[in-house]
């Protein structure tokens, strides 16, 4: 019964969120208002290409918002922020994980 419940709950996990690097990006952004591309890359130990690929996917589904405000005479910074939809998706993922833990009777 518990195995069935666990499998059902595991099926509820959002694959977009569940992937290790994407989960790391979303979790990292959930603690702040916004972060610069290079900071996320350095903190999560990703390459530019890898982070770009994951961010493009997350932006496509509306989980993150990417902005590049340009200031004359200054380097253009790429800012990434978690969108309300992304925050909800991460919360739902965390709730599912918590439910999975709670479904196991303590010894």
């Amino acid at each position: 019964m518990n195995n069935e419940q666990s499998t059902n709950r595991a099926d509820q996990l959002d694959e977009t969120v569940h992937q290790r690097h994407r989960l790391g990006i979303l979790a990292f952004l959930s603690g702040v208002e916004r972060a610069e591309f290079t900071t996320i890359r350095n903190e999560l130990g990703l390459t530019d290409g890898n982070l770009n690929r994951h961010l493009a996917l997350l932006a496509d589904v509306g989980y993150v918002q990417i902005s590049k405000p340009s200031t004359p005479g200054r380097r253009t910074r790429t800012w990434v922020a978690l969108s309300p939809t992304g925050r909800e998706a991460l919360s739902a993922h965390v709730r599912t994980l918590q439910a999975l833990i709670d479904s196991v009777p303590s010894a």
Partner: protein
Amino acid sequence: MFDVWWVLTNVTLRGKVAAMNFAQQSLPVAQDAGDASGQLRFVEGRRAASRRLAAAVWFPLLIGGIANIAAPTVVDLIGGDAASGWYWGFAGPLIGISCGLFYASRPIHLPVRVAITAAVIGIALMVGALFLGFSFGESRAGAPLLAVAAGLGAFAVLYRSLLVGLVGGAALIAAIALIAMNTSRAERVAYLTVGIVSCGVAIAALLTMRPEAHQE
């Protein structure tokens, strides 16, 4: 001999492949409580790391520490009963503006709610230090430290920072000791102690940050 070499190589390769799969692909699908709690720890760890990085408590601690170290000398130079109040009335806004500019220039920003709360605490700290500095009677020299201690306590809760709480505790003890003794020598020692503790904690916090976090 060959068998031993084959087993060792095979085990090492399998370990490497497993590690690469974990690092480059996805977390194991959470089908049991162990996997799930591991993932929850992973999420919490990343969230805490970004908050810690955005809070950058080393900067306000360093600036505040320098202000405390400079306080006795500058207060002596100003002279008069309200010298402490004048000093903090000037140093407070200067610390606030420095912190504002510092946080605005950071490549990672605290949530707006936290930033607004921090600004409110900073203003309350300044007004409190000013008020106490001007109007705490004979013990006014130690009074601004009480406001500093209260402010640091609030910042410690807001930033969830033990280091800030540690400096707040040092400020509180110094303020109580200073008010109890109420001598100019005690005042100098109290401000210097708080300043040195604050700068020391700031440097320790700065040194323990991951170097790649500073890279642009």
